[in-house]
């Protein structure tokens, strides 16, 4: 297939996934603030994840929300992501199923009409749910209608490279100082980690898998290592290696992905967190970024 087509498909799904994850970050901040967390603790991480330098003083919720959802100065706001996803989809609409195009296009048509007033009217929770619903619809259309050939795999690559980045960053800002021995079950910690689990739709799964208290180490283990949890790093790297093996087993990016996958597949929590969770997250984010660049040079910039 055309390199440019692969590039558009890859970024189309990355932007949809990014929009969904911003909605998830906002949702967890909202939950924490409703449970009495300080504005600084609740809302600053949203900016940190998006790559803002550390802020002193107050971070007003309203500003964080409008910046993350609608601010035209922020190309990675949800509005900007959905527009970029739609532009990428538009450029390859002869390749993607109509259902997929319609799902992305109608999402854009809806958010195009959204302004601050409409957002207040709908409420943050309602809006975040809507973004997640649209992302589910897009993913469902992809999974339910696309032929399992190259275009499909580039769409999946975009989804899981982006998701891995987001799950890692979520742990980075919400799990500062966690080690394999973090077993605190203080009420505040329970609340904090329950919100983290809910933000990746993993609360029920956690409950189904374990009767233990929600502990920092338990949640971290799940989000890093549990291959059955669809937003864990392990599950993301399963999907990435699966698609790359089908695109081209001999590519350099396939090797990089395999190495990253092996670490999660065969690693133990205490080894991975030897130098702390922060260090692990930093390394993972860099490695994931390098993998993304390698995918570009292997497939998307052919000459």
């Amino acid at each position, binding site marked *: *297939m*055309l390199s*440019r087509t692969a590039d558009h498909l890859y970024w189309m799904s990355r932007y949809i996934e990014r929009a969904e994850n911003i909605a998830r970050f906002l949702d967890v901040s909202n939950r924490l603030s409703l449970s009495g967390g300080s504005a600084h603790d609740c809302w600053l991480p949203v900016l940190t994840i998006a790559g803002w330098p550390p802020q002193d003083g107050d971070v007003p919720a309203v500003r964080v929300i409008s910046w993350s959802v609608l601010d035209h100065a922020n190309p990675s706001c949800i509005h900007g992501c959905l527009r970029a996803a739609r532009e990428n989809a*538009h450029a390859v609409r002869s390749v993607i199923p109509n259902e997929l*195009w319609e799902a992305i296009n109608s999402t854009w048509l809806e958010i195009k009409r959204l302004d601050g007033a409409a957002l207040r009217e709908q409420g943050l929770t309602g809006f975040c749910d809507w973004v997640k619903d649209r992302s589910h619809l897009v993913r469902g259309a992809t999974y339910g209608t696309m032929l399992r050939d190259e275009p499909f795999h580039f769409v999946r690559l975009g989804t899981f490279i982006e998701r891995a980045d987001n799950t890692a960053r979520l742990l980075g800002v919400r799990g500062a100082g966690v080690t394999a021995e973090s077993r605190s079950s203080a009420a505040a910690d329970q609340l904090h980690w329950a919100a983290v689990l809910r933000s990746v739709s993993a609360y029920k799964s956690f409950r189904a898998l374990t009767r233990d208290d929600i502990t920092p180490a338990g949640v971290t283990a799940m989000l890093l290592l549990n291959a059955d949890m669809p937003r864990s790093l392990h599950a993301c790297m399963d999907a990435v290696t699966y698609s790359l093996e089908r695109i*081209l087993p001999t590519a350099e990016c396939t090797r990089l992905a395999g190495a990253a996958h092996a670490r999660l597949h065969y690693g133990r929590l205490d080894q991975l967190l030897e130098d702390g969770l922060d260090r692990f997250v930093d390394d993972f984010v860099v490695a994931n970024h390098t993998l993304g660049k390698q995918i570009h040079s292997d497939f998307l910039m*052919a000459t």
Partner: protein
Amino acid sequence: MAFDEMKAPDGGVRAPYRAYENWLLSVAPDVLPRKLEQADEMFRRIGITFNVYGDQEGTERLIPFDPIPRIISAEEWQRVHNGCIQRVKALNAFIHDIYHDQEILKAGIVPREQVLGNDSYRPEMQGLDVARNVYVHIAGVDVVRVGADEFYVLEDNLRTPSGVSYMLENRAMMMRLFPDLFARHRVKPVDSYSDVLHKALRSVAPAACEGEPTVVVLTPGYHNSAYFEHAFLAEQMGVELVEGRDLFVADGKVWMRTTMGPKRVDVIYRRIDDDFLDPLAFRPDSALGVPGLLSVYRMGGVTLANAIGTGVADDKSTYIHVPEMIRFYLGEEPILPNVPTWRLEREDDRTYVLEHLADLVVKEVHGSGGYGMLVGPTSTKAQIEAFRAKILANPANYIAQPTLALSTCPTLVESGIVPRHVDLRPFVLSGETTTLVPGGLTRVALKEGSLVVNSSQGGGTKDTWVLEDEPC
């Protein structure tokens, strides 16, 4: 009174519309408006839009769709069909001739300076042989009707004619909205268009091509007004939709960049104008084209559809010679006549036209899309005077034609069903043979009394039904 496609002068209903009228009388009056609403919603959802140049309001708009079909009998169609094929064959022969021996110039039928001095004449094409001698693989012939037996060709579109996606999508929409109507009529299907197109394109692969030819559609990109159509046709044919930056030239061949490395391209259905095809040969500032494409083309390494330089034959100054071309190359009488045309560079013509501006239509010789034209009867005195000044400044840039009373077709507007003027653009495909699918794009001027059907000027589209011959 203009000829109406549905209502006969005696107040009855013309034969092709009889079954339709029975249906119309049998349904509730709000059926059409409701169906139209559904159609608009569906078109918007699947993103059938076009971009309007100069429109500040967002760049995309729906072309208004009218839910009442334009119906043509088998007999009427036969004439349009034969006339269009005849015309395109002659035009193709003309292009081949002027880029080879120029017999028609030698015979004095078309003035030499008019052809060789035309901006669309491409010296690069001189002496070049193209596959199967086909230059115009896709042609759109604009046909208008002014009476029961009076069809005229208004314009030939031989460069990158657009609109065929509306023919196909309008039909799909009509079948979705009105399945019962299709049960009552025997409408000839149009959906073979993309297969016929793909076959025609494969049949003109360069001689050097081994095995199954690789066909691509080359688009300027998604900001182009017809992007939807480019994507649609690529999808229907199952071929890649490429932009200039996806292609490159190496080893005397054209390649496309794929995830598995370069892949050879044999036939390019290009929807980019000549000027932008190759920045090394034509406009150096073009970012849309492929550097070196012309050199590969000239060496026979790739086929371009349509060929370079076809614009010399669809110019309005060439148009007036088409009936003579048909006689010269085919030895036949034209089946579809031209509209009488005055050329303002000729003094006699100019004098006449300037005296009758209020009754005539004046167009730029190289213009298209309904821009830069004067429709005398619907213009104000001031507009006419302003146009007179433009003509006097550069008479050779204009032609004039009588204001034809284009036929009308019942059309749904807010106040109900009213007659509106229509034209018809059938699409003629040439490869191993020359064919056209039974149908075309019917454009309708939605404003009362307006004769301008272009989508950029407030025109809409209708599904065009060609009926099967009814056994009596």
